[in-house]
């Protein structure tokens, strides 16, 4: 089907951890927008491609109603989408597939950043402020690894990069106004009613990309509106169980995974960050990690 259709735009091959994919659109402007959004995930081809790493193809097709149908490998993911929702579902599905196909790594529901070669892991469930804090720290000069899914490579004890766009929900918009999608984005993200922003990262943005690194800090966020912003030390036990609760596939790794959690909890400086003020929260982390901020957080 893909060969038969004249696509207005197809992205280069992209990689989300072990998941390889490309996106084709029948709307050239939308295709270019998506390529720019996902460009940080361009597959460099540096890594050996296993037979299981087949390339998956997403398609976005305009339908008569003026909406879009999103499909993966010819199977419908969602129909009747606005542009903004189609992009949101695309990012969501890539994230899901990345988690499913990258099981050789220990995966955490977490944000990840790098500062001078030292990794900062920000584990937490939805609503904990994980993506907001990750975005704030990236804006402050930390290099970005991921805002949602961080892979810990067991063989090397490194955090890997999965530079998906940062997904910010409406509750974070006011704290991160600089990350509002560009004015020439006419694909719905600037709509006042937009439920989320997809923020591009990497080259041509102000948010630098990190490289694989060993974790040195574990910062467990807890967004507490109206509360005091503070950092407090976690015990090894608290850090271990926080990591376990936010590990996506601990069951798959059993003993090796459990031991990795223990090593992370023992080796890293582990803290809880309760925050209501993002600027203050970022300042505390910048002071802790000792990395000069590129901008005001």
């Amino acid at each position: 089907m893909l060969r038969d259709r004249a696509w207005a735009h197809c992205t280069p091959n992209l990689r989300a951890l072990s998941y390889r994919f490309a996106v084709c659109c029948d709307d050239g402007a939308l295709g270019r927008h998506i390529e720019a959004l996902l460009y940080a995930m361009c597959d460099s081809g540096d890594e050996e491609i296993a037979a299981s790493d087949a390339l998956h193809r997403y398609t976005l097709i305009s339908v008569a109603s003026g909406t879009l149908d999103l499909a993966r490998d010819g199977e419908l993911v969602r129909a009747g989408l606005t542009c903004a929702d189609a992009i949101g579902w695309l990012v969501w599905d890539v994230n899901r597939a990345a988690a499913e196909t990258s099981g050789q790594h220990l995966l955490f529901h977490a944000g990840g950043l790098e500062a001078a070669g030292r990794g900062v892991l920000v584990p937490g469930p939805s609503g904990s402020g994980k993506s907001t804090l990750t975005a704030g720290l990236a804006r402050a000069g930390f290099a970005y690894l991921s805002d949602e899914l961080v892979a810990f490579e067991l063989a090397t004890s490194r955090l890997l990069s999965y530079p998906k766009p940062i997904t910010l929900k409406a509750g974070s918009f006011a704290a991160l106004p600089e990350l509002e999608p560009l004015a020439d984005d006419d694909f719905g993200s600037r709509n006042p009613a937009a439920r989320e922003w997809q923020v591009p990262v990497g080259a041509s943005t102000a948010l630098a990309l990190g490289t694989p690194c060993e974790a040195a800090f574990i910062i467990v966020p807890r967004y507490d509106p109206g509360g005091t912003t503070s950092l407090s030390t976690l015990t090894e036990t608290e850090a271990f169980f926080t990591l376990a609760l936010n590990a996506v596939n601990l069951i798959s790794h059993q003993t090796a995974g459990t031991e990795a959690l223990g090593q992370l909890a023992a080796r890293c400086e582990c803290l809880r960050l309760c925050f209501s003020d993002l600027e203050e929260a970022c300042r505390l982390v910048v002071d802790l990690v000792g990395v000069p901020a590129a901008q005001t957080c």
Partner: protein
Amino acid sequence: MDSQWPTADSRPVSRLGASTVELDDNVAVYDDVGQLLILLNSSAASVWALCDGSTTAQAIVEALAAAHPDHADVIGEDVRQTLRKLAELGLVSDMTGTDGAAAPGVAGS
């Protein structure tokens, strides 16, 4: 589970394959069979460490009482309850009367 277990002669043994991680004064135990991740406090961790299949329950009590003489009067019951709880979770079984295999139907049932 036998309501009298463990007896003084019971020889509890930790489940083969259960992995442990020392954390502060605690021990996390991951049982990949039951897919349980359990935190043992320092007292339970001390009992767990002696569940080697050769040390009897009585010897565990004596060893811990010697290490904690101020609590010697309660250690016997604490050890018994800890072993029963570990057995309920399937983390220990009883080697008594066996040649290496855990006695069936005694613990972890």
